[in-house]
């Protein structure tokens, strides 16, 4: 059987030759510019970024995911007193694939980090993280403990930190409003 020399010019310059062939074929079979289509695409490009931004801002779906005490306030967030539904925040989903926002509510132990990472990676992009409460921001009252990491920002990129032990549900409302502003470009990182 004949051996193929992969270091020959034929193989090294393959890309250049391919480009040459494509160029020639484009010259002979040039696509005429479609005026209407071109204008439409420009129009959609101009408007869609705004539309996408607006829809992203107004359909933040948080994940139904709680670790500890702050998760109780997270549930209170959905209760009739706060009524988060009026701003469209209250579509807590059970699966990470349908979510945009992960609210880390509670202390993060070493044994739970791999699970949180996996959930985060299962979320579709763009995805946001809110560190809710002292424990998720800096370790909180457990900062001395041997089994705690001092803040979820050591593992995941965090968008909004919420202080308090536990923060009131109103604070979570405020945090989501802040996240909306960040998506709209009003607040910079």
């Amino acid at each position, binding site marked *: 059987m004949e051996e193929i020399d992969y270091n020959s010019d034929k193989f090294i310059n393959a890309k250049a030759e391919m480009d040459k062939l494509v160029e020639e074929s484009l010259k002979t079979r040039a696509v005429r510019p479609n005026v209407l289509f071109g204008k439409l695409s420009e129009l959609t490009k101009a408007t869609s970024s705004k539309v996408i931004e607006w829809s992203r801002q107004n359909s933040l779906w948080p994940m139904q995911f709680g670790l500890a*005490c702050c998760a109780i306030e997270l*549930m209170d967030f959905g209760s009739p007193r706060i009524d988060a539904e009026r701003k469209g925040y209250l579509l807590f989903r059970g699966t990470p694939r349908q979510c945009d926002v992960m609210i880390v509510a*509670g*202390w993060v132990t070493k044994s*739970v980090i791999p*699970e949180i990472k996996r959930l985060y990676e299962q979320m579709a992009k763009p995805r946001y993280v809110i560190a809710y409460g002292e424990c998720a921001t800096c370790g909180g009252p457990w900062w001395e403990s041997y*089994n705690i990491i001092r803040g979820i920002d050591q593992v995941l990129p965090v968008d909004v930190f919420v202080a308090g032990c536990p923060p009131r549900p109103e604070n979570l409302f405020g945090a989501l409003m802040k996240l909306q502003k960040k998506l709209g470009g009003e607040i910079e990182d």
Partner: protein
Amino acid sequence: MHLMRVVIDVPVRINVGPIHPSTHGVLRLVVDVEGDKIENMEAHIGFLHRGVEKLLENRMYMQACPHMEKLDYFAPMSYDELYVAAVEQAYGIELKEKAMYVRTILLELQRIASHLASIGFLCNDIGQLFTAFMWSFKDRDMVLKLLEAATGTRMFYVNMRIGGLVRDLPPGFEDSAIELLDYLSKRIPAYEKYLEKNPVFMERNKGIGVISRDEAKNLGITGPVLRGSGVSYDIRKNKPYYVYEKLNFRIQVRNEGDNFARYKVRMLELRESIRIVREALKKMPPEGSAVGMPIRLIGPPVKNKITITERELPRGECMIYLVADPQRPYRAYIRSANFINLSAIEEMCKGQRFADIFSIIGGLDMVMADVDK
């Protein structure tokens, strides 16, 4: 019509959790099912472990209160009180009568809030009954509002001091408390009417997760779960503390031992708690202060080196075994009711169907932070 059937005769192993198996925290269950029937089950815990008992050894007595509260975050004040009572016993400090009454009132209000939340979670775990969850959280919020007026914070109060409380009850507390209790005593029949006439609720709770009287005793279960199995045992009656001796209430017992019995016991206990608060508000001495010692305990020497303090918390009997050093505990062992109640889950789930796991967890009403410590 012909229905296609897939028969799997090999037992299948299903992993439940660890993140959020229901609304009770981070718990992993490995379940072997045959068809829909649970053959075997194994519970994995420890995902929320942060070493509370070790941390307590490095804290002065009053510094540890916030840590104790975070054990059971549905009833933080009860745990706070348990720890402070243990320290009081170690130092041999007696409470004033007013302080005893105020503590009793606040603890029973906390029990009402906790039981309301647990009923809401049971309905949420079953699914479909989100209405009851909304109702119970609305009512719980009203109780929390009253507690906020009395203590200053919404969830973690840190309201206990050695020898009393941080502050007296605010003026007008009694009137607003009685108003709330009137409202709640009207609400409880509404819950019962809604839930007990609901076929979904009844189907998924009656005869589910049965644990017999003897088994419950052997496993060391306490609280509403034990009382749902027909054992009349309540620390408030059996080893009364504070002013529970002077107050008129009953231990609520159901004999069925299933999930519905546990729910019913909680409902009946809500009524009893309302009764207790009403009576305590009437009998409370109008004069005097409930305020305890300043935050640091420097003066008195430790009287009892080793003490055991037991309290009836909303989720069962909790105990602290305290070996006291001056200023800080040498060792504080916490018997958490949730951890011991959780040991029954394998017994309860065997032979049940897969979907019943969640109603059983809801009926047990665990707090995983308390289990893992």
